[in-house]
Structure formats: structure tokens, C-alpha cells
């Protein structure tokens, strides 16, 4: 496959792995932020190539994993209303709220559809004027511009609305760094988020927390090269933003996508599953777009932030314990019956470990 296979080439990857082993004088703790990167790391068995030269911990960058139960409960409620079609991305269907997941809402008779894009939901609204179509809009700055563009294309529709649960990556990285017990010494930043937002926005994080931030791609050679860049900085005591993913990321990102977001959303405080409330880390519909807010349209209020239970998602997400360090991992908590969101999505740290890491 062109433009992909080059970055999966074995000798290239082995070369980077060797460089990392040679450069690292101690096992630096590096967090890859994006769930897609976690997926690649485990799918290709990258820790096995690094031989303990670095410790990789899986960050909070799985969009469905961090969506809090209160929003899922709201989506479950909306899905149960007569005449409503609730649209969701595929892997959101199995994430538990406090009253089940969207898959079981469908089994109970709710009209829940899996879509690949918010535009599919707009199309559904156009073709079903007698129904109210609601997009459960989750994800980072990667999916938020598509939600914004879909809303702009749906201005004439009075049967389309969204449950807006988009979140921003940078505030979460800051939250991780300021947490007690945080062991992160360097970041691999999420390349696709940076494609939209640009890498300039990380300068303050690198400076204030004295932590190298490497904007990284998603193929094994990308990730290994980025780890090498990070280890080199750590070994030389520097802490700046570096861009490994140059084929996609520029300093200022994608101005058109950012403008779409600015037109439709406002920044707000947001609860993250496992991390709690993070100031200015979420996107809500701005006041001009209030009438497209499904929560408002259907009179849904958000429940209280989740109460404490046994799931250790939070400690896993900040890298305090590995997924296998949780007593429920693979026992009470599996992809078929997940206790917490990181076990649900294939990008979730626990599910990725379960699929690719167990027994090896």
C-alpha cells in the first residue's frame, strides 16, 4: 500500500529501535498521547523491539474512552425518545454509561445508527424529515471540524441537532503534567490533532513543564523516530517542541478547519472519564448555535460527574499504573464486559493491551 508501507518497513524500524537503545542511558518514561499511536505500538509489538530502553505509557487520547458517563447517559436518554434517530461513531456504541451502552439501547428498541461522519447524520436528517436526527459528536480537534462543517451544511434543517462532547487535547496534557504522581518525562503529541491545530500551540507546555513534546505520526517508523527524537532531547536535557510528522503537520495547522471550529464552538470546562473536570478542555455549541443543541432541544440535563467505583481508568490514563496493574484487567474487565472505557475502544489503553499484549 503506497504511502503506508514505507513507514512500516522492517529495516527502517529496526534501525530506529537500535538508535533508541543506543541513545537511552536510562528507561525514560514517555507518554504517547493518541489512542491511535497506542494501537500501533501494541499492534506492531514495538515495546518488544525496544527491550526496556524506554517505558511507554498510554495517554488520554482515545476519544471514546474519555467521554464521561454523564454524556453517554444523555445520549441513551435521547436515543430512547420516540421519533429520534441517534447517530454515533462505531466504537462509541459499546462504551458504558451508568445505564448501559448504546448497543443495548438499540436492543431495547432505540433507533441508534452507526455513522462514519457527521455528514451521514445530516443526510439521514434530510431523508427522514419526520424524524429528529441527533449526532452524538465526540472526539478531539480531529473530529470537531467535521461536526462544525456538518452543522453549517444543516442550517436549513429543523430536525438535526448534536450532543456536543468534543474535547481538546492540550488542556488534558497540562492536566496530566500537573497531577500528583505523574511520571511523564516526554510526550509524543497526537499528529492528527496537530494537523488541525498546528504544533505552535505546544510551546508553552514544553517550556512550563520542561518536557520535550514530539509531534508524531501513527505508523511504526513514525513512532520509533519520534521516540528517538524524544530520548535524544531528554539525554541532552532540552525540552522543546519538535515535529516528526512533517508530511502532515505545519506550525499553524489547518486554518480553514480551525475557523470552522471557531464559528460553531465555544471553549468550556469539561469532565473527562478517568481524569475528572478539566478547565477549558471541552467544546460546546456557541450561543449562535444553541438551537442545534440536542440537550436543549430535548430538555436533557447532564448528570453529576461519575461517582467513585472500582475501575482504575484514571490511574491508567495518567500512567500511574499499567493496564495490567489493575486487579480487574482480564478478569472482571474484558472487551466483552468492560468496566471502564479504556477497555472498550480498540484505541483504549486497556483494550489494546488485552488484544495485543496479553501473554506476550
Amino acid at each position, binding site marked *: 500500500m503506497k504511502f503506508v508501507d514505507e513507514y512500516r518497513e522492517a529495516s527502517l524500524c529496526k534501525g530506529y529501535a537500535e538508535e533508541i537503545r543506543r541513545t537511552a542511558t536510562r528507561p525514560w518514561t514517555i507518554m504517547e498521547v493518541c489512542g491511535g499511536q497506542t494501537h500501533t505500538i501494541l499492534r506492531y509489538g514495538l515495546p518488544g523491539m525496544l527491550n526496556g530502553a524506554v517505558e511507554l505509557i498510554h495517554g488520554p487520547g482515545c476519544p471514546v474512552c474519555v467521554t464521561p458517563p454523564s454524556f453517554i447517559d444523555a445520549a441513551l436518554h435521547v436515543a430512547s425518545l420516540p421519533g429520534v434517530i441517534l447517530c454515533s461513531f462505531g*466504537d462509541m456504541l459499546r462504551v458504558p454509561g451508568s445505564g448501559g451502552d448504546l*448497543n443495548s439501547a438499540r436492543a431495547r428498541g432505540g433507533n441508534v445508527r452507526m455513522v462514519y461522519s457527521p455528514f451521514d447524520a445530516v443526510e439521514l436528517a434530510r431523508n427522514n424529515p419526520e424524524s429528529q436526527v441527533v449526532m452524538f459528536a465526540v472526539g478531539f480537534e480531529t473530529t470537531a471540524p467535521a461536526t462544525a462543517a456538518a452543522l453549517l451544511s444543516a442550517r436549513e434543517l429543523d430536525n438535526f441537532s448534536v450532543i456536543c462532547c468534543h474535547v481538546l487535547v492540550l488542556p488534558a496534557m497540562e492536566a496530566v503534567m500537573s497531577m500528583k504522581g505523574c511520571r511523564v518525562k516526554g510526550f509524543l503529541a497526537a499528529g492528527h490533532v496537530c494537523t488541525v491545530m498546528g504544533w505552535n500551540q505546544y510551546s508553552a507546555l514544553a517550556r512550563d513543564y520542561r518536557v520535550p513534546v514530539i509531534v508524531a505520526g501513527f505508523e511504526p517508523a513514525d513512532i520509533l523516530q519520534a521516540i528517538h527524537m524524544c530520548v535524544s532531547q531528554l539525554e541532552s536535557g532540552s525540552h522543546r517542541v519538535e515535529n516528526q510528522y512533517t508530511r502532515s503537520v505545519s506550525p499553524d495547522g489547518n486554518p480553514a478547519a480551525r475557523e470552522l471550529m471557531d464559528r460553531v464552538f465555544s471553549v468550556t470546562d469539561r469532565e473527562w472519564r*478517568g481524569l475528572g473536570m478539566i478547565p477549558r478542555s471541552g467544546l460546546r455549541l456557541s450561543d449562535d448555535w444553541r438551537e442545534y443543541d440536542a440537550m436543549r432541544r430535548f430538555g436533557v440535563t447532564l448528570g453529576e460527574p461519575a461517582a*467513585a*467505583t472500582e475501575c482504575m481508568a484514571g490511574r491508567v490514563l495518567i500512567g500511574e499504573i499499567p493496564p495490567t496493574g489493575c486487579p480487574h484487567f482480564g478478569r472482571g474487565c*474484558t472487551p466483552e464486559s468492560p468496566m471502564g472505557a479504556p477497555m472498550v475502544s480498540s484505541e483504549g489503553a486497556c483494550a489494546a493491551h*488485552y488484544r495485543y499484549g496479553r501473554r506476550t
Partner: protein
Amino acid sequence: MNCPLPTPPGDTVTLAHGGGGRLTNRLIEDVMIPAFGRPPGGEQHDGALLPIQGNSGIAFTTDCHVVDPLFFPGGDIGSLSIIGTVNDLAMCGALPKWISAGFILEEGLSMSILRRVVASMANAAANSDVRIVTGDTKVVNRGKGDGIYICTSGVGQVIPGMDFRPGRVTAGDAVLVSGDIGRHGISVLACREGISLELTIESDLAPLTGKMLALANAGVDVHCMRDLTRGGLAAALNEIATASSKGMTIDEAAIPVAGEVAGACEILGLDPLQSACEGRFVLFTPEGHAQKALKAMGTGAALIGVVDDSPETGVFLRTTLGTKRVLEMPSGMLLPRIC
């Protein structure tokens, strides 16, 4: 810092129970087996092997077909309903002979669609050398079905000496696959409403009796065979690993995947190893028979791995980078990743 416990799974049937993964297995183990008991011989296989006096025995299998859309590139629900059952019989080492067909039709279905499906069934039966000998039809109210559901059962005559049950898998066996994987799943997905991928991938839907006979005629000592259906290669290998209590190592680079299938999986966030096939099978044979088997299976077949000589049960993947990881049993529905 925490997330709540979900309601325990299992109080309602979800789509994942039909996905061919762990939840399907659990449905069988928790609901069906306690009520019906295990089949004669005790082993779960593609069909039941039933002894008949003075005969090498018969194989008996059944399969229900629900597919959306009814027509897809390379086939339709009609041809699928025949070939799926033919293949289950072939994987039991039996010559497929007779098939029953049960139709559940939805009120309002166009007669021309029904005719097309039935003609396709007749055509598939003729090509597979089986006869449709009995059937039944029921009609349900509009809105209570997806146009057509077809349930087929098949009877085949076991070829003397053919025993493909997983228990025969032996350490050192070569693992082979009969062709490139994942086509059926992707071709059906790509033409489903809401996914506008312009692909030319055709389903791999095809009867496997010919290849099974070619292997027998070439004198290949087949230890085990299983067709790849829901859950794809990952599910078939895991089922065999579990049933035989063996471990195996699969070389990821050796698994044949068509470029278009690999590309579609990249875009959709799916794993080709979990994508369904309807005309492919895995084969376990002593290493010394591997070349003969490849020749008998023809173009596209590949040697993909080996059964380990170790007490560890499961399927391990040697990645393209030379590292090793577990190849898990798919858990249920294929859920595309969001980004």
C-alpha cells in the same frame, strides 16, 4: 478518577451476539449447550458427523442467512445461503448432497427480487453439485424482517478416511490458507448504506468442495480444515487453537490480503484478519505435505504459520517487524475506530 460499572452483559441479545466472536461462543455455551447437550462426538465443528451403519457416515449442518444488502458484489443472499452450507459440509470432509431451504419473507417484498434470489440459489446449487430437496416459506408482517431471511440445512456423505476435526492438529503442522482473506466482509460493508467507498472488491463467495477434493486426491494428509466466515481468520484460528489445546505462530507478512481490502480496512479502521470470508479456509497438515497442499489449492494459497511445540495454547502473530503478539479472538461486532 473513576468510571462506573456497566450493567452486566447478557440480559438482552445484542448484535454482537451474532458476530461470530466471543459473545457468539458464550451464547452457545451458556444458552444452547445447557439445553441441547453437546453434539455426538462432543467436538464443535462446522457440522455434525453422524454414524450410519454400513456407511462412512453423514455430515449434517445448518446455517441461517441474514445479510444487508441482499445483493452485493460477487453474490447475494441466495448464493450465500447455498454456498455457506455446502462449505460447512466440505469442511467436515463430506460430499454435499441435499439441501433444505426455509424462507422468511417480509410482506411487501417485490416478487422480482424473490425470483432473482431463488434463481441465484438454483444456480449456486447446480454449480456446487447439490440439490435443494425440501423447503418451507413463512411471511411476516411488514417491518418485522429485512426482506428475506434464508435458513438452509445440508446433508453430505462423509468421504471414507476424511477426518478434519481440530483434535487431530499436531505440533509441527503447517498452517495454510486457501486464498487472500477478508474480501466478503469488506465488499458487503462497502455497499451498505451510509458508507460511500468506491471499491471494486468482489466477495470471495465460492464453494470449497472442489479444493477439498483436490487435496484428498493429491494425497494430502489433512489434519484439520475450517472455513473462514464471521470473525475471519482470527476467529477460525482461535477456535482451532482452543479446540485442539495447541498454540500456533502465524507470520503476518505471509497472510495474503488484497491491496484494496487492506486499503479499505485502513480507511475504515478495521482489521482484515477479522473480516469475514465466504470462500476461504485454513488447513493444518504435516509440514512435509505443505507444498503438495499449496499446489492442490491453486493460485492464491499460502503457507502462513506453524503449530508450536509448546504447552501454551493460543494464536501468536509474528508481526511484519519481527515482534510477537497475541492474535485475539474477535470479541463481537466489528466496530470501526473513530480516528
